[in-house]
């Protein structure tokens, strides 16, 4: 149970799709001019992520991983099809998105009209494929955790696009330097928001105390999953917090 809660909050705040890994930036920038459309797209992303990540987890476990075909019989035990994962993941995602599009068109024509061209583009939204690829590279252990990861990442993305859409609606009334208007100021605001989100980095490490048990656990897990980069980020975030506290 504890690991579910930990993964849930970690995926929403610390490893936020937009602010920590820049996934789904294209639609994040293109669809964030109005709050209502942003909410629609965010909800679609949550749904698609929550469905495709567990599906791709099953594919990864029973088809792609090293030795995953062992259930077919001992002679298949040493097959490693993981090089096919890109193509299989993207095929699953494209199919699911098509399905979501049909369902939305049937039950909510208003939402369908407002999302317009962007619904098919969810298929090429990096957040969706990124969710599946991170699920694979972080070696998420069970189907339940995979579902949790997909759902929480989706919620994180939703929060991010909601926040930027609200800010962009307000910023229309401000006097931004002309060359920065539109895209430029959005980039800089997103950067500032990402700095703000980095302060969540201390959330699961107990405020940066080095001898903490959970801290050691998290650090160990990080080391296993994502070698240098992620750890460096976390570490920097913690030392940054300490610097602020001082």
């Amino acid at each position, binding site marked *: 149970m504890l690991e579910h809660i930990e993964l849930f909050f970690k995926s929403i705040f610390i490893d936020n799709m937009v602010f920590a890994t820049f996934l*789904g*930036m294209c639609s994040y920038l293109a669809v964030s001019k109005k709050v209502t459309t942003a909410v629609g797209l965010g909800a679609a992303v949550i749904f698609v992520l929550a469905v495709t990540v567990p599906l791709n987890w099953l594919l990864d476990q029973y088809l792609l991983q090293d030795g995953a075909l062992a259930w077919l019989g001992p002679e298949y035990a040493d097959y490693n099809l993981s090089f096919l994962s890109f193509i299989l993941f993207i095929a699953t995602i494209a199919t699911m998105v098509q399905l979501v599009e049909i369902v939305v068109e049937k039950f909510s024509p208003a939402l369908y009209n407002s999302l317009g061209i962007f619904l098919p583009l969810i298929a090429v939204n990096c957040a969706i494929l990124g969710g599946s690829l991170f699920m694979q590279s972080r070696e998420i252990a069970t189907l339940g955790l995979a579902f949790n990861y997909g759902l929480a990442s989706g919620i994180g993305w939703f929060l991010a696009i909601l926040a930027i859409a609200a800010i962009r609606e307000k910023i229309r009334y401000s006097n931004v330097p002309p060359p920065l208007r539109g895209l*430029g100021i959005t980039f800089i605001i997103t950067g500032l928001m990402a700095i703000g989100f980095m302060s969540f980095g201390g959330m699961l490490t107990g405020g940066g105390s080095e001898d903490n048990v959970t801290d050691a656990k998290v650090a160990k897990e990080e080391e296993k999953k994502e070698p240098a980069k992620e750890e460096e980020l976390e570490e*920097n975030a913690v030392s940054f917090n300490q610097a602020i506290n001082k």
Partner: protein
Amino acid sequence: MALLSKKDTSLILDPLADNNPITIQVLGICSALAITAELKASIVMAISVLFVMGLGNVVIALMRNVIPSKIRIIVQLIVVASLVIIVDQVLKAFAYELSKTLSVFVGLIITNCIIMGRFEAFALGNGPYRSFLDGVGNAAGYGVILIIVGFFRELLGSGTLLGIPVLGDPIAKTGLYSIGYENNGFMLLSPMALIVVGIIIWVQRSRNRALIEEN
């Protein structure tokens, strides 16, 4: 006859500046920012995208008359995914350390919006040669921004370029460090990539005011 007519030259040169995929068309930002903390990773990423886009555009242009328009997105995804698998396998074989640094971002070339965008906007309506030029041009425009961001982030963040120290030794206090210069570790964190791109957009638009947006 020249190898490149005037129109063909503009296909390559336009995306480098006034029609840049990242700063003007707002495409392909997803994979562009996360890997730019080091110049080397940026260069490898730029080359990978150049390869995938050049070849992908040619393949789609050759098949453009036989692809039914309803399933074109899936066909495009399959073509890109196959090319990306090749890049991924080559990187794993010849530059394993680097492929670890790039981690999932090689795979995310598949969903790089520049590639799909150029397939839709150009390769589906033009011949293979011009599509190839268009692909190379746009990938180069993408690569230029990546390399600029990578250059500044690595130089200011760790004082090195391509892993070679250029500002002196921060521990032995030589070079610039002897007069009290410090590395700005903040440049290595992901938010700074956004801010650096924001500044690039600012500079570009104040030089060319025709690009300024309404709001």
